[in-house]
């Protein structure tokens, strides 16, 4: 994270403390998708906060990750509207195709598969976030094609 970036973030807010969320987001993006203890310390230093404070924020919000993630992250919404459309089968298809259990990262570090709370796409169920980009109306039958695409990329 460069200093100019941080200063620009801080200036957006009357109180620089407000910059902690965007700073954590940028730091996570630049650190391969997770916040290591070192990364947390860097954010703390840049914002003149303590690492403990930054960790208390990072641990509160689901999108900050405190453990390494796979090269590609697949998250399936399993809340009610997606479940009514067959999200369970979508999860099972990803487990099969990616060879990883939902809620974990494959040993070779290629894929993280997760089930996640409502992504705000209930009318376009099942919603799957791949590296935070939403795919809509995904069915179990679509999964092999999506995984093939992920392998190629």
């Amino acid at each position, binding site marked *: 994270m460069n200093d100019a970036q941080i200063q620009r973030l801080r200036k957006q807010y009357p109180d620089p403390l407000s910059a902690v969320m965007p700073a954590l987001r940028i730091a996570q993006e630049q650190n391969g998708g997770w916040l290591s203890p070192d990364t947390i310390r860097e954010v703390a230093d840049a914002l003149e906060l303590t690492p403990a404070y930054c960790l208390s924020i990072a641990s509160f919000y689901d999108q900050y990750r405190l453990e390494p993630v796979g090269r590609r992250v697949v998250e399936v919404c399993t809340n009610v*509207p997606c479940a009514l459309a067959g999200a369970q089968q979508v999860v099972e298809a990803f487990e099969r195709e990616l060879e990883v259990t939902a809620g974990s990262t494959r040993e070779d570090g290629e894929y993280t598969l997760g089930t*996640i709370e409502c992504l705000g*796409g*209930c009318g376009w169920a099942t919603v799957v976030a791949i590296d935070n980009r939403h795919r809509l109306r995904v069915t179990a039958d679509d999964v092999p094609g999506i995984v093939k695409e992920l392998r190629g990329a």
Partner: protein
Amino acid sequence: MPEHPQIVFAGTDGGAVLDIDRYRAAGGFSALAKTRAMAPDDVIAELEASGLRGRGGAFFPTGRKWAFVPKPEALPKPHYLVVNADESEPGSFKDREIMLRVPFRFLEGCLIAAHGIQSQHVFVYIRGEYEREFEILRDSLEAVRKDDLLGGVTVVVHRGAGAYICGEETALLESLEGKRGQPRTKPPFPAIAGLYAAPTAVNNVESITTVTSVFELGAAEYAKLGVENSTGTRVFSLSGDVANPGNYELPHGISMRELVYDIGGGIANGRELKAVIPGGSSTSVLTADDIDVKMDFTSLVEAGSSIGSAGVIVIDDRCCMVQLGIRVSQFYEHESCGKCTPCRVGTKWVTQILEKIEDGRAAQADLDLLLSVCDRIMGKCLCPLGDSDAIAVLSYVDRFREEFQAHIDLGRCPFDGESSLEGILAPSAMHASQGHEAAHV
């Protein structure tokens, strides 16, 4: 499908208006010019006359909310407009489509609102999972700035990071201040001591976008749409076991039958309608017998539910209501911020008792215990997140009691593994505490 007036999605022809010149050519930003020529008090008075009420869930009159914000002379601090774009309630996905399709009408509404409450600072708090929506807002904002329309107002789009509780307005303000998103004690209310302890109006994306529509049409014309007490249109999010799910902008007061059958194309796959959750997962379930209820604030209260965020979830006869309760309760348990004990502990208990019932391990006393736990959450916390779990689950028991009873009497789920929610999974963050197997209902 009969033609219904589109005022939020006006001028889109079913698509998106992402080009500022196109928006302006169709009259965009004329409402802003009109309101900037008015005294702020007159803007608020006209909004009150329109009858516009909040679309975020509580249905509070928008004009009155703005009137609560003290005048800068009376309270000489910066004033803030905070727009709630945290949309995370299961069943609700309308704000997202508004930001995707009419970002300029939304931003115009932000500037009108800022004028109304005499604010120079707008913050839009958008949920962290909305990537495309964020990019569109960022780019649209840049176009508004280039066209010199900001009039000295700064607009900052602040991204959340995955926490439903940050939709609750005081938790949102805490989060925006760089803290954990936990609700505050009220009073003081945000109008007096909101963001950075300064006067703040918090409004939903659809409310703010509709503000533009009100001034495009004039309050009197706007108020002719909809019904008494629920003026104007509403963007209904339709999902679940319905043939044509999606967002539909319709006048308040349309019947649920028209929404589900005429517009939604009826129940998918020729199944039978069992239940409808009318206003997002936090609202009481209605049954197929309620199908003629009108979709407005008063009618839904009279039917024993609420219009909430107008997220309408349709459920057909394959669904086990105990499983539904488990998944809804898991959501609130997962999203509880942990500040208030009745919510933190109670939502977990509710899930566990429901799991016991579903697994056929429950005795009659467990059903009573479930009701008593719900009762001990209700109204006992700083915010109504835990209440939402209790309200939802109590309504499932109330409307489908024989189904809960059958689980207890049979010692198993009467759906025998055939429920549409069979095998439904909790979010993976809950797997660790429950074990992956246990997370499968």
